[in-house]
C-alpha cells in the first residue's frame, strides 16, 4: 500500500528522496548526529551557519526554555568556510544526502567570497543565504529585514556561486513578502522560512537577562502559527519553491506547511528533543498519503489558497 506513495521531489534542482530536511543550526555538519541516528533519513541537510572566518559564538548561557519552545543565542559558532569546505563537507558527502551549506556574512563582499569558495566544493547541492540570524551583531538579520539589502545579498551569492541558491527569510521583517520578492529578483532559486523570532527571557532571581547575549531566537512549537502564516503569504507572492520550517514536530505539521505552500519542510528545534524525528515523520507522512490516496505529497502544496 505504502509502495504507491512517492515522497521524492525536485526542490529547485535538489533531488530529495523525501521532503524532510534538517534545518541549519541543529545538525552541525552531521558528525554528532551520526552517533545518534541515520543521516540518510533526511531528504536534505542544511549544515551549521558557516562564516568566512571561524566564530567562537556567544557567551553562555546560550539556551533557555520558554513556553512550548526555546530561545537560543548560539551566535553562529562554526569552524569557518575553509574547514567546512575541506573537512566537514567531504566527510558528510559519504551519506549521499543532498547538502545545503548555510552561509552567513557581515558584508556583500563576504557573501560573494563564500559563494566562490563553495562553488568548487564537490557535493554542495545548494547554498542557503542566512539573512535572518538574530544572534550576530553585524550583518546577520539586518540583510533580511530590508528588501534592497536582501536583493544585494542574494545577488552577491548567486553571481559568485552560480548553482542553486536558497535565501532563508526572517519573520522579523515588517513585510516578509517584499523581502521574499527581492530575494527572488536577486537570483534566489528557492526560499526557506522562517528563521527564529527575536525574543528574550529574564531571570527573576538575578533580575538580569537570562541569555548571555541578552536577546535570542525563539523556536519550537510556539512559533508554528507565525511560520505557517509566513509560508502562506510568501508562497502566494513568489513562484520559486519554499522550504517551510518553524516548530514542526508531527506529520500533521508537515501537511499543514505543505497546504500553506511549502514543497519541502525542515525540522529544527524539535530535532534537539527528538533526534529520530525524521524517520518517524517520513514514515507517518507516507502512511497519511497512502490512506488519503495521495501519490506524491507535492499534490498538497498550496492547496490552502489555490
Amino acid at each position: 500500500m505504502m509502495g504507491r506513495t512517492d515522497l521524492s521531489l525536485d526542490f529547485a534542482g535538489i533531488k530529495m528522496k523525501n521532503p524532510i530536511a534538517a534545518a541549519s543550526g541543529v545538525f552541525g555538519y552531521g558528525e554528532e548526529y551520526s552517533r545518534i541516528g541515520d543521516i540518510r533519513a533526511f531528504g536534505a541537510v542544511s549544515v551549521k551557519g558557516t562564516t568566512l572566518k571561524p566564530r567562537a559564538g556567544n557567551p553562555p548561557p546560550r539556551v533557555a526554555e520558554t513556553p512550548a519552545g526555546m530561545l537560543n543565542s548560539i551566535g553562529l559558532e562554526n569552524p569557518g568556510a575553509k574547514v567546512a569546505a575541506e573537512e566537514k563537507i567531504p566527510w558528510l558527502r559519504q551519506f549521499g544526502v543532498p547538502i545545503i551549506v548555510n552561509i552567513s556574512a557581515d558584508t556583500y563582499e563576504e557573501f560573494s567570497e563564500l559563494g566562490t569558495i563553495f562553488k568548487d566544493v564537490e557535493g554542495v547541492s545548494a547554498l542557503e543565504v542566512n539573512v535572518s540570524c538574530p544572534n550576530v551583531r553585524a550583518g546577520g538579520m539586518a540583510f533580511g529585514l530590508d528588501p534592497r539589502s536582501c536583493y544585494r545579498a542574494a545577488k552577491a551569492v548567486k553571481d559568485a556561486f552560480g548553482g542553486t541558491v536558497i535565501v532563508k527569510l526572517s519573520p522579523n521583517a515588517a513585510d516578509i513578502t517584499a523581502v521574499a520578492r527581492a530575494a527572488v529578483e536577486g537570483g534566489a532559486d528557492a526560499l526557506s522560512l522562517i528563521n527564529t523570532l527575536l525574543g528574550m527571557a529574564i531571570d527573576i532571581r538575578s533580575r538580569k537577562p537570562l541569555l548571555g547575549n541578552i536577546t535570542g531566537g525563539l523556536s519550537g512549537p510556539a512559533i508554528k502559527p507565525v511560520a505557517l502564516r509566513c509560508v502562506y503569504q510568501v508562497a502566494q507572492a513568489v513562484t520559486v519553491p519554499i522550504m517551510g520550517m518553524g516548530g514542526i514536530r508531527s506529520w500533521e505539521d508537515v501537511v499543514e506547511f505543505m497546504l500553506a505552500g511549502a514543497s519541502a519542510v525542515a525540522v529544527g528545534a524539535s530535532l534537539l528533543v527528538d533526534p529520530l524525528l525524521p524517520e518517524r515523520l517520513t514514515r507517518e507522512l507516507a502512511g497519511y498519503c497512502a490512506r488519503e490516496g495521495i501519490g506524491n505529497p507535492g499534490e498538497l502544496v498550496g492547496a490552502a489558497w489555490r
Partner: protein
Amino acid sequence: MSLLVNSNTIGAGAEEARGHSGGGALREIYDVNAQVVSVAVVPGEVYRAKLVAPEIARAARPLQFVNVEVSQGPHPFLRRPFSLSWFSAAEGLVEITWAVVGEGSKIMTQWETGTEVRVLGPLGNGFSLKDIKGEALQNADRPRLWLVGGGTGLLPMYPLAKEAASQGWEVALFYGARSMAQVMDTSRFVKAGCRVIVATEDGTYGSRGRVTDLLEPVIPELGHEDVIVACGPVPMLRSVKNLMALSAAPLYVSLESRMACGTGLCKGCAVRAAGDEEKYYHVCSDGPVFRADQVELGGAP
C-alpha cells in the same frame, strides 16, 4: 547474573539506527522507550528512579548522563539532562536522582512503576580511571581518589567511586550540604569501601562548615598519587579550584549547564576555555568532566 531484557521497552529507533552502518561512525547513543521499575523519595529531598534501558546501561561509563523526555506534548519542550547516579549493565537498568527545581522535575514526580519515558543516552564522555592513568599514577602503590561533592553533585560520582574502590584505589568522599534535610544518603559510598566525611553549613549534620573546609586540611598531603574530582555548584567548584591551585594533584570538575540536545548538535551548553576569550568548550560533547585548569569558572584565579 540475570539479564533483564523486556523487548517492549527497547526503542525501535535505536535498534534501527544500529542496523545502519552510519558510514563508519560509531553508534553509541540510544533513544529508548524506558520503563520505570521503581521510584521513591529518598533522603536529601530528592526523587530516585530506576529505568529499564539495557542499551544505555551496557554502554554507560561513570559521570555520563541521559536526556529525559518529561512531556509528549509541546510543553515543557526540552528534555531534562540527569547524570546517572547508578547503572548496571547486567541488570539492564539505569538510575537517575533529582531534586524538584522546576516544571520538568516536578512532572517527573508523577512517575510510577510502569510509566514509560523516552531516554536518550548515554551522553557526554563520562570519566573513568582510564582517563587519569596518564597523571603519573601508573607507578603509585595505592592511588587515592578524593571526591568533593556539593548538594546533588554527590550523585554522579558514585559509579566512579565504585569503580575506583573495586580496583584497589583508596577513595574518600567529602560531601557538603546546606542542612541536614538536604543531606543525601551516602551509605552506598560507604558500602563500596569509600571513606565519607560530611559537613553542613548550619552544623545540623556532620561538621559545621563548607565542603572546602573539609578539603583544606588534607591539601598539603596531596601529591602525584592523588586525584581530585569535584561536582557541585559553580561557586563550590571555584573555591575548590582556588584551594587546589598550588597542589601537585590534578583536579577534575564535572560541570552542569543549561542544555537543549545533550548531544553536541546545538552548541548551547558552552563553557569558556580558561585564558582564552575566543574559545568555548561544550559541557555535553567535551565534558561534562574537565581538567579544572581547562575551563573558566569565573571569579579570581
